[in-house]
């Protein structure tokens, strides 16, 4: 009996390892590619462990490209779109939850269902007519298509889960709805706001398709910039893997640090952008 249980545990452990190894091996390989020189990266059979690990690829990324500009672009667009979405989406989530406005929620859900490209065709034309192309504003505005629905969706769930009594007590005591929202509901919903903020930021940071269409040479966000590296230079795996790692590192770190919040938000809404 005891032996059977031990075998069962070993089998279960192996199953867990089998489940997580595709992720671990992939990211290790990404790291390995980024730390090897070009000779080792083109060697066959492949060199698995960089010996010695070199940082040349990372240096090349910054020296040969405007990587800093692209990073600042990404920061401006993702922080801007997330901040604006919180400003607009948190009150909206509150309103929808309290007024039980299912139809308003459904309109938001359409954004989750439709392909990102379908917004781009009309918006692209409008930005051209308004002569806004060449600036970062079209990117920030289109990223709202991703961030606003995420924030509203997560916040509806949170406000619906809050106890009614405190807010009603405040209203009975003569507070206005805005005061009840600001001083009662909002502080209680802080964990929800954190979840909404993280998810909106990550899916905005990761977005590629809006940038591909709307960004010019100077206004590329990081995912677009890293994609263009392969189109313009001859393929060199080391710097490319290093650039890819730099682009995705903030998101991976955020996931590792905030895993509880992220898991909570994703389980509740099944949200995903673009």
């Amino acid at each position, binding site marked *: 009996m005891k032996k059977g249980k031990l075998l069962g545990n070993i089998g279960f452990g192996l199953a867990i390892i089998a489940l997580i190894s595709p992720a671990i091996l*992939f990211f290790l390989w990404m790291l390995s590619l980024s730390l090897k020189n070009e000779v080792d990266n083109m060697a066959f059979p492949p060199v698995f462990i960089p010996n010695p690990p070199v940082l040349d690829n990372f240096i090349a990324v910054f020296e040969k490209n405007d990587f800093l500009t692209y990073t600042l672009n990404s920061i401006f667009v993702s922080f801007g779109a997330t901040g604006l979405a919180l400003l607009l989406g948190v009150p909206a989530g509150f309103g929808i939850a309290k*007024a039980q406005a299912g139809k308003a929620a459904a309109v938001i859900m359409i954004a989750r269902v439709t392909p990102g490209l379908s917004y781009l*065709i009309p918006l692209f034309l409008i930005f051209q007519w308004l002569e806004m192309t060449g600036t970062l504003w079209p990117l920030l505005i289109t990223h709202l298509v991703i961030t606003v629905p995420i924030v509203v969706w997560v916040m509806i769930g949170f406000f619906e889960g809050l106890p009614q009594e405190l807010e009603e007590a405040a209203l009975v005591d003569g507070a206005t709805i805005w005061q009840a929202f600001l001083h009662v509901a909002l502080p209680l919903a802080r964990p929800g706001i954190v979840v909404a903020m993280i998810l909106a930021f990550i899916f905005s940071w990761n977005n590629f398709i809006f940038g591909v269409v709307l960004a010019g040479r100077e206004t590329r966000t990081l*995912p677009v910039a890293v994609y263009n590296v392969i189109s313009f230079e001859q393929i060199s*795996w080391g710097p490319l893997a290093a650039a*890819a790692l730099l682009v995705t590192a903030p998101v991976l770190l955020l996931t590792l640090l905030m*895993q509880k919040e992220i898991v909570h938000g994703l389980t509740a809404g099944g949200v995903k952008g673009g």
Partner: protein
Amino acid sequence: MTAAASGLRGRNYARNYWPFLLPAGVVVLAVIVFPWLFTLYMSVHEFKVGGDFTFIGLDNYIRLTTDDRFLWSVVRTLYFTALSVILPVGLGVAAAIAFHKKFPLRGLARTIFILPMMATPVAVALVWTMTFHPQLGVLNYLLTSVGIPPSQWTYDSVSVIPTLVMVETWQWTPLVMLIVLGGLASLPVDPYEAATLDGASGWDMFRHITVPLVWPHIIVATVIRTIDALKAFDLIFVISGGGPGTSSETMNLFLYLQAFSFYNMGYAAAVTVVFFIIILLVSLLLFSARQQKQWQ
């Protein structure tokens, strides 16, 4: 308080909450609703960037029914979607059952498991592309070292879609796992206790209690996965670009080419509308499957 008075109070409150929705509502109108109306308008016009709008009725839609390149892209999309739903849902449910058990380092293992879906798709796709290289890629090295013949991966018109499905599965199985895990976590304990008292085996409990209770979550995960697979773009665009030839050109890639390579905006708008209808039909079909399952 009388029922009528409390009803009145409730109605007044509902009205008072609308100002909260107003700012977001304006933005949603501008970046979501308006683009849709404009798309509908464009789809019945002939329009190229820089030119004029010419009303042509349903000609764009009629043209789609005879455009072989479009029709094949629909077939490819459905093929890609079918595989990209079945595999992640199957694996994701299995993973959810595993992660529902308590074991040491569970939190860390779960976090590692969801990294693929959080990572930047373009970054991930670029590294996958390197592993698919027929001569220098690490995957063919691993295959041949265990005696399996090498594959052409994305460089061959037959293997390209299964290869893309593999990456899609790697990336999106975690989302299915999370949704189903949420379902497992919310299961009541009473039926299990009763069943244990009645002497039911673990498998019996799984089949007759767990599966029926988690079924709605599996359906939700399937619908979400289907929608996402239908509109997959980043991975395909970066890894194969729709090639070789047009052998992995899905609807979304066809749409991109029409709109932003050929600048046929009117035609692309019609593709968008048809695309949206297909997504809606497939989602409704899956939801009705859920209803039937519940009535049985």
